[in-house]
């Protein structure tokens, strides 16, 4: 047996013995997702046990080094773990921004001391992180951010406001972009700092969207004391870290629809609502629109497959991630528009049990944010124009 086959056999056996039955049931909604952290209320013993056992193996962060609480797996082994978990429908044991964003940033830019301090609690599900990037006056032009950290000798004093901080009200720590040199050019005076959300002077307020409740918050900093060794990477070089993570974020956005439309073909769904004539959708214009959307989606998937194959061959994705972000999110918006066209009045019910409290309209409205968050479509097209097409600046 090859080493990988051996690994697969052992993994399968371990998962079989250690993944509780309840954690193999399909996820019913966001409440089944384990976020971890100090304030986390486990939904069941099984959820807690599953997280703890996986953390013990280092498999909550399979590819992070073992010395920092990860599993130390190779990409091949991690792929096997993933396959074996999918095979038994095992839920993710725990995940939050610490795993997706901060971890990769610390591993690339952080000092050994910062890694030792912060990575193991993430792996154990003890600390939940949020991201402090955008500000009311720094959206697409993120580098113009104004939240400032003043050097007070043995610590920084942070003052300012962040917006779109997802789950800030539930998170324990924040990774945050702050201006540490107000006199430098805008990209050069920013630092990437870490601090506890329970530090005096931090307050949060949830944001209600056009789609209803949301995980987004406004977060305010009023004379917040931050340790000077809490800077990731070099002082005033935080933009490098931010840029690295933004590319990371973009790769996670776009493509397949979330929510109700996940795995549901739009054509047959529309047929249920608008009816058919001679086997064809009764609304011929809608039928053509759906066929065009699905054609474009098939073309998009072909492109994604090609980009992945090239990335695996080491050719790199680079600026093409902007292409995928742009087109994937625009497709998703079109898909929800057509879903609403198809559902008509039934999709518009905002407070009925039939729609589980306006789920359809809410998801439709939420999709509008896809082409804004993580870089607007217009910013993406700008990146493509300059970095892929080589068109000159004005």
């Amino acid at each position, binding site marked *: 047996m090859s080493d990988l086959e051996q690994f697969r056999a052992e993994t399968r056996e371990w998962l079989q013995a250690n993944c509780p039955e309840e954690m193999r049931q399909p996820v019913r909604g966001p409440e089944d997702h384990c976020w971890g952290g100090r304030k986390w209320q486990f939904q069941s013993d099984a959820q807690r046990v599953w997280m703890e056992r996986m953390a013990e193996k280092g498999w909550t962060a399979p590819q992070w080094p073992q010395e920092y609480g990860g599993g130390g797996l190779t990409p091949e082994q991690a792929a096997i773990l993933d396959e074996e978990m999918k095979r038994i429908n095992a839920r993710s044991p725990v995940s939050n921004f610490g795993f997706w964003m901060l971890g990769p940033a610390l591993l690339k830019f952080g000092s050994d001391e910062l890694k030792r301090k912060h990575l193991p609690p993430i792996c154990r599900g003890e600390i939940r992180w949020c991201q402090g990037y955008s500000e009311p006056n720094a959206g697409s032009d993120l580098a113009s951010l104004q939240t400032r950290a003043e050097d007070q000798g043995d610590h920084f004093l942070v003052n300012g406001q962040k917006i779109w901080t997802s789950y800030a009200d539930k998170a324990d720590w924040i990774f945050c972009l702050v201006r540490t040199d107000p006199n430098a050019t805008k990209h050069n005076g920013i630092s990437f700092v870490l601090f506890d959300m329970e530090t005096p002077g931090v307050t949060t307020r949830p944001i209600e969207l056009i789609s209803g409740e949301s995980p987004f918050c406004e977060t305010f900093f009023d004379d917040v004391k931050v340790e000077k060794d809490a800077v990731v990477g070099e002082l005033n070089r935080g933009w490098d870290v931010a840029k690295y993570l933004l590319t990371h974020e973009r790769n996670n956005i776009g493509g397949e629809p979330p929510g109700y439309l996940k795995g549901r073909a739009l054509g047959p769904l529309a047929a249920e609502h608008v009816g058919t004539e001679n086997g064809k959708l009764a609304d011929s214009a809608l039928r053509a629109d759906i066929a065009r959307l699905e054609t474009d989606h098939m073309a998009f998937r*072909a492109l994604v497959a090609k980009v992945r194959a090239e990335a695996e061959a080491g050719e790199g994705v680079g600026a093409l991630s902007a292409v995928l972000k742009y087109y994937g999110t625009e497709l998703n918006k079109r898909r929800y528009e057509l879903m609403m066209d198809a559902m008509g009045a039934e999709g518009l019910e905002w407070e009925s049990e039939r729609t589980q409290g306006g789920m359809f309209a809410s998801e439709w409205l939420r999709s509008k944010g896809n082409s804004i968050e993580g870089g607007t479509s217009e910013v993406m097209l700008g990146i493509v124009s300059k970095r892929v097409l080589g068109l000159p600046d004005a």
Partner: protein
Amino acid sequence: MRLNDEQQMLQDSVARLMADKGPVSRLRELRDSRDEKGYDQPLWQAMVEAGLTGILVPEEHGGIAFGLVGAGLVAQEIGRNLSVTPFLSTAVLGATALSTGATAEQQSQWLPAIAEGTALVALAVDEGAKHRPDNLSTRYEGGKISGDKLLVLDGHVADLLLVAATDGQDIALYLVDPKASGVTIERTIMADSRNAARIHFDNVDAEPMADGAAALRAALRAGRAVLAAELAGLSREVFERTLGYLKERKQFGRLIGTFQALQHRAAQLMIDVTMTEALALQALDACDNNADNADAQVFAAKGKAARTALLAGQEGVQMHGGIGMTDEFDIGFFLKRARAGGETLGDANFCADRFATLGGY
């Protein structure tokens, strides 16, 4: 999908061949000289020598049986250069129909001739303004065919006509000698300066195939997939020429490529072109591998390619401004071919209709 080494080599050599022997200037020469044959004979001869005419002909009949991905790669370069050849009519539609549904005897007679470049074949399906291959009135009865066809690609130079007709039950392909009595051929030069013909059949001798219905289905699918690749190549070329112009043309004291209104449109066009290329290649590969959803992929690819090519042609002319409107400048040739190629074997609406039906709605 990614090309294997063999396919990559084919692409490189065909790209050189087409750029060298079949550039856009040849299309212009053929058009201006009102060439009688209406295709590029030296280029076709070079393609014969390179084995490209037999790219879909089985090896036992003297071909190289490279598969549809290979044929698509050739078509892509044809699209980039607007090379004028009977590749689609003969090497794709003719070869696919005959190798799929013809009798052994018919195959031995015609397939080697296609590979050797001694015979041209034309497929006669359409009867009206739009491609409606399931609704034909041309009749086959008692060994004779009667009816009217149009948009018969390379019809006036063909040595063999494959005619779609109904016997009252099935629609199938029949072999007809273009010189047979009762055949009247009118060459119709199209807007893209390509060959097509209107053909009238008045009680003409016709020869059935072993499975003429399967031959028609296979030919149409292969033709659509290969046309998608041609239109993808055309779109890529228009995009690159246009991008080049944005980087050299100055107005208001600056390069027009610095204007955001044009930058974003150029970026969107690039994205559509890149997706179209990926989808066309994937559809061709799906046909070669007989994938379950190959039909849906081909309709998607042909429909998408038709729209992308037309968009590229329109944006190409618009972004070139006044010079783009002149006949002296080449960009207009691409717009013309985009529309003609988009219409051939089913336009974007036809493809969307079939795609939707296959999707169950």
